[in-house]
């Protein structure tokens, strides 16, 4: 294997590094129109001209090499450590043509490290709109580098990057700026002490004043005298360095970079003014949220019903076609029911992801972050915590990863701890089905109660997050608050390709990720539900038949048979009246008797099935947890579903679907089955307003996601925090649900 050229993509946040990376490697990493999307190294391979290959590294964005947060330090650690296996042969600095000045600061720093560097000026497609003109040849000369003018949107300039990478040996490695002039004596001393090391590199190592976590393996051990020289003195010198660099950059840009001020700038400013206005801003955000939730209900109910019914008929088909036996039952009652419990939510989940993607890509999300920042400050959280909280609406896992942009460790910890309160997409299935069951369908000002309830649940999630942050803040006492500069990205028309791709990927991983767990859990639940050890289970047929003979059917079945019979008689009468049939009285009574026998058989089977279920392994387990969930208004079946959803919330519906279908002959949709469940104690529907609200609240607050716990453990490096989260959030959820049920019942 020939040696690969190692390339690192470096640049300010939101300049399009990942977009360039995707173009070069053909991979599809996440791109989004706000800073801080990439928080980890990502690798890929790129084929260059003449059969050469490059190993491309996508890195988190960084404003300069004077890092302040964990994601930024990834870049500095890499560049300062020549022995790192990823240490680049050539650095590609990606800049955004509209923010060239600020972007070049980082460029000159890397150049001064004497690493070969190529400058990519991205977003060239926006130059005409914003009236920018560039003198590339002059820039190349003054910056002493090679430049590629690129638009990843239009796909232009990518070949130029590839050529420049292949030719990296011809790049000059002389520095741009002589940093030593900021403190000649000091640098002299440095040179005397470490004659072998590069001075600028030493300077960077010394000034790594990281207040979040120390960089562990410093490539050079520094003598204490230099490190502790005086913090404020070092800071002052650092500022001097920055000023020096900007002087250099300004000098160049004055000649090479022209902006026609008359070109569109006004639109963005006006939009920003409205969207971040202290009244209209919130109002608009509110309306957008409402529209989203309303749309989720209005648009997705048709595909959802269709899928639900298809799964019901699929189970029926399996039972009719495959040879009868336990395995056939497992497929029809366990596997199909369980999988159906997640698949029916694909339309809504896809819609949710679609809206999130649109908001992110258009640049609106950053305005929301800005709005929320103002809202959060009084509660002791800074704006940087808002990004995780908002991106948590998709999933808490990437959201917790996104906290890496927060410099202050305590603040980061608090954000990690409260982020799981945000309503993630896994809660959506539970909310949707429960709301559909217990919230009436009426409308208020064109908005359905159901959509309003859904929105309320989302707001409650945020509320709980902010509230607990406030409390944690009081307990933990953060000293230095993070200083938040949110960079407002430009508004962009969302790229259909990006949006479709994001929606597709996220939906796929949601369904597959949850699907595997649900499949496994459904199989096991089915097994536990259709097997038992007790005599009661083995002799269920006789016991139930005897019971029916002695005491008759249960209330529910009695009324059910009666009402079915009346309906049937009525239908018969009607069709005779309309002369569809001509029947003699004997035939009529025969047909009535047949109907009744069929109903009785069905009722008997159903009672046997439920008796068996109650005496199965699962029944015993359920009975064991019933006392715990009873005060919340749940029966033992819901109890089992709540328990299994501690693995992942999405499992809830699938679990119930499996439990309800074990042993039942009728194939029915999940929703109908849930609606038909009767609480044996109250004789009312099991899913009523009180128990429904109680369930909604429980799911809103409980910490039911093993994967999130694992990520929190990874990010905080101890089990202490995830354990605390699990206990506190679940306890809180229990108490709230308990209160709600006791009040409403």
């Amino acid at each position, binding site marked *: 294997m020939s040696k690969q050229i190692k390339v690192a993509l470096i640049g300010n946040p939101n300049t399009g590094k990942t977009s360039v990376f995707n173009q070069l490697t053909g991979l599809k990493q996440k791109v989004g129109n706000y800073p801080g999307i990439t928080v980890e190294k990502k690798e890929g391979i790129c084929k260059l001209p003449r059969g050469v290959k490059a190993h491309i590294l996508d890195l988190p964005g960084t404003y300069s090499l004077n890092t302040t947060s964990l994601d930024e330090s990834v870049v500095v650690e890499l560049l300062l450590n020549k022995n790192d296996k990823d240490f680049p042969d050539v650095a590609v600095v990606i800049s955004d043509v509209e923010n060239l000045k600020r972007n070049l600061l980082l460029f000159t720093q890397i150049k001064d490290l004497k690493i070969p560097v190529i400058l990519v000026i991205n977003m060239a497609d926006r130059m005409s709109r914003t009236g920018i003109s560039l003198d590339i040849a002059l820039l190349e000369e003054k910056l002493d580098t090679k430049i590629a003018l690129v638009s990843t949107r239009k796909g232009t300039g990518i070949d130029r990057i590839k050529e420049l990478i292949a030719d990296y040996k011809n790049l000059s490695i002389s520095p741009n700026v002589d940093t030593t002039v900021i403190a000649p004596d000091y640098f002299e001393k440095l040179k005397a002490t470490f004659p072998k090391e590069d001075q600028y590199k030493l300077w960077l190592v010394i000034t790594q004043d990281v207040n979040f976590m120390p960089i562990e393996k410093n490539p050079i051990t520094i003598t204490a005298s230099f490190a502790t020289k005086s913090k404020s003195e070092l800071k002052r010198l650092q500022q001097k360095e920055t000023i020096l660099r900007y002087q250099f950059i300004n000098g160049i840009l004055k000649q090479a970079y022209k902006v026609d001020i008359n070109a569109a700038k006004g639109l963005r400013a006006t939009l920003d003014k409205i969207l971040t206005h202290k009244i209209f801003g919130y109002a608009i955000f509110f309306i957008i949220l409402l529209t989203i939730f309303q749309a989720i209900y209005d648009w997705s109910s048709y595909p959802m019903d269709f899928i639900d019914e298809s799964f019901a008929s699929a189970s029926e088909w399996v039972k009719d076609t495959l040879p009868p036996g*336990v*395995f056939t039952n497992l497929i029809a009652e366990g596997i199909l029911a369980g999988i159906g419990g997640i698949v029916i939510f694909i339309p809504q989940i896809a819609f949710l992801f679609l809206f999130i993607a649109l908001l992110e890509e258009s640049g609106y999300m950053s305005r929301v972050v800005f709005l929320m920042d103002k809202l959060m400050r009084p509660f002791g959280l800074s704006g940087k915590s808002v990004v995780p909280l908002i991106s948590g609406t998709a*999933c808490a896992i*990437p959201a917790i990863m996104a906290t890496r942009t927060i410099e202050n460790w305590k603040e980061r910890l608090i954000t990690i701890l409260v982020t799981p309160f945000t309503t993630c997409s896994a809660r959506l299935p539970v909310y949707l089905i429960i709301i559909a069951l217990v919230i009436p369908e009426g409308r208020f000002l064109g908005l359905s109660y159901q959509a309003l309830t859904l929105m309320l649940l989302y707001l409650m999630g945020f509320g709980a997050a902010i509230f607990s942050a406030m409390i944690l803040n009081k307990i933990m006492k953060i000293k230095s608050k993070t200083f938040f500069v949110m960079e407002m990205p430009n508004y962009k028309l969302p790229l259909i390709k990006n949006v479709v791709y994001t929606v597709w990927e*996220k939906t796929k991983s949601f369904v597959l990720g949850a699907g*595997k*767990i649900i499949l*496994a859990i459904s199989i096991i639940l089915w097994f536990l539900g259709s097997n038992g050890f007790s005599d009661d289970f083995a002799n269920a047929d006789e016991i139930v038949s005897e019971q029916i003979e002695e005491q008759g059917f249960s209330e529910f079945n009695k009324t059910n048979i009666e009402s079915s019979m009346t309906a049937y008689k009525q239908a018969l009468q009607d069709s005779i009246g309309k002369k569809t049939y001509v029947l003699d009285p004997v035939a009529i009574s025969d047909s009535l008797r047949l109907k009744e026998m069929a109903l009785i058989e069905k009722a008997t089977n159903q009672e046997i099935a439920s008796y068996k279920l109650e005496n199965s392994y699962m029944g015993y387990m359920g009975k064991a947890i019933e006392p715990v969930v009873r005060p919340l208004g749940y029966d033992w079946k819901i109890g089992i579903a709540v328990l299994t959803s501690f693995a992942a919330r999405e499992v809830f519906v699938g679990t119930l679907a499996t439990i309800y279908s074990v042993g039942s002959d009728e194939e029915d949709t999940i929703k109908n089955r849930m609606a038909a469940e009767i609480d044996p104690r109250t004789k009312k529907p099991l899913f009523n307003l009180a128990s429904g609200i109680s369930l909604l609240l429980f799911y809103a607050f409980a910490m039911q996601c093993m994967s999130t716990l*694992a990520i929190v453990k990874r990010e905080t490096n101890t089990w202490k925090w995830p354990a605390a989260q699990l206990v506190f959030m679940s306890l809180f959820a229990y108490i709230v649900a308990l209160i709600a049920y006791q009040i409403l019942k």
Partner: protein
Amino acid sequence: MSILQHILVYITVALALGYLVKKFLLPKSLFAGKKRSSKSCGDGDCGCH
């Protein structure tokens, strides 16, 4: 035929149980035989259930 169905059920249940145990109870590192690619958990999307 019925025996076959029973056997199939036991196999399926064992597989399901194995999957859940592997997923939630055993530490990830046990299975990271090869170097874990950068596509492991925490990809920036929800793909790590």
